[in-house]
């Protein structure tokens, strides 16, 4: 369970998160929508402790992320995150990209790590590309590799930050399919996305962010068909 309690976060003078409360249950898929600069990415990077917070707390399975005593490297092993920019390690093959963290962080042996990596890469449709270098892959393939890389750590939670936004339109579908598959397998996920059809399709709940506030959250049917907050209505009208 991820519990976000009254989280505030500023970059210098700019208050980016103004008291966010959100609890994500095991197995739940929550998508986050909202305008650019509303703090969606910042929230995700706070959840796995890449960014400090100013006030409030975030608990992952009861462990307080920003407590001084928390071992972040250990905590991050169970929170996978995939970013908009796919961030391949360009000097490693696809297989090595995926085996690196299991081997060095979890201490898994080479053969076993490769078996895990192969399974995950096949899962995302990259079983044929094991010894290819990432620069030879399309954006969509690189993004799926990044997903496999995160999954190879056997995380309990996956965070996705606009993973299709930097892709050519014809490559968006294959990545969304991968996310959908994960959701159907019961992965606990928080997905920041601009793909409204996708959000409607896979989410248990959809949250709308506006200027650092979670203005509204609800089941997809309710939020898309009967938005309560005026800003949500405005936003949905603008993206339709």
């Amino acid at each position, binding site marked *: 369970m991820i519990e976000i309690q009254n989280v505030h976060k500023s970059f210098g003078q700019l208050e980016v998160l103004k008291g966010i409360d959100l609890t994500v249950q095991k197995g739940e898929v929550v998508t986050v929508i909202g305008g650019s600069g509303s703090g969606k990415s910042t929230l995700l990077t706070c959840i796995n402790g890449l960014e400090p917070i100013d006030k409030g707390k975030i608990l992952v399975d009861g462990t307080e992320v920003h407590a001084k005593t928390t071992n972040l*490297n250990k905590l991050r*092993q169970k929170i996978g995150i995939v970013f908009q*920019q796919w961030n391949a*390690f*360009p000097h490693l093959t696809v297989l090595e990209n995926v085996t690196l963290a299991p081997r060095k*962080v979890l201490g898994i042996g080479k053969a076993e790590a490769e078996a895990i990596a192969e399974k995950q890469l096949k899962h995302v449709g990259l079983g044929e590309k094991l010894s290819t270098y990432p620069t030879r892959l399309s954006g969509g393939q690189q993004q799926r590799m990044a997903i496999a890389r995160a999954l190879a750590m056997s995380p309990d939670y996956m965070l996705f930050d606009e993973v299709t936004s930097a892709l050519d339109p014809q490559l968006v579908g294959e990545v969304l399919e991968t996310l959908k598959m994960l959701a159907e397998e019961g992965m606990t996920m928080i997905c920041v996305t601009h793909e409204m059809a996708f959000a409607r399709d896979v989410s248990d709940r959809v949250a709308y962010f506006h200027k650092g506030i979670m203005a509204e959250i609800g089941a997809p049917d309710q939020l898309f068909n009967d938005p309560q907050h005026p800003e949500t209505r405005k936003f949905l009208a603008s993206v339709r």
Partner: protein
Amino acid sequence: MFHTALTSADLIFLAKGAGMTILVTAISVFIGTLLGIVFGVLRGQLGPIWFAPVTFVLDIFRSVPLLIQLVLANAFVGMVLRLHISGLTVACMVLSLYTAAYCTEIVRGGIHAVPATTRRAARSLGMSWLQDMRYIVLPLATRIALPSWIGLALGVMKDSALVYVVQVTELLKSTQILITRLQEPLFLLLICGAFYFIISFPLARFGGYLEKRWSND
């Protein structure tokens, strides 16, 4: 017909000079590169302000002519510290620091060129700072910095000709000794240049080979 007084013994004498050039260069580049990596990484960790004292010292090594550094270091070691250290050791110490000063900048630039988003991806997989450095940052920085580093190593090899001022008989000094005796300056300098080329060529080619191999990634 071309005639020279150069004997095979003289050629061996030159080869020994070349050996000394290689020795001084290899030691200095090795130590200087290690120091450069340490300083370059520290510079990235501490930030420019905390690192300023080291930057200041390294700037001295980069801006004072090497010849002056060698003479002063030799005098300092002998007259102030009153140590009996060989000229070779003094030469290697000075050249190592000289190399480190340049190498620090090269390493800093290489590390800086690794995108922050790539490093964030590594950390988000649970890698520690050290693992990120070891498996992501330094390998990528090495690829970026290699051409400059090869240039530095070749430069240090040529600059090592100056260590004759601390009584180290390297290639150029050996050549001068023969010139004084044989009075065939042009021919001897030609041979000396050929020796330098033979030493440099493998390093330059090795750099080219690595660049080519890495570009397939």
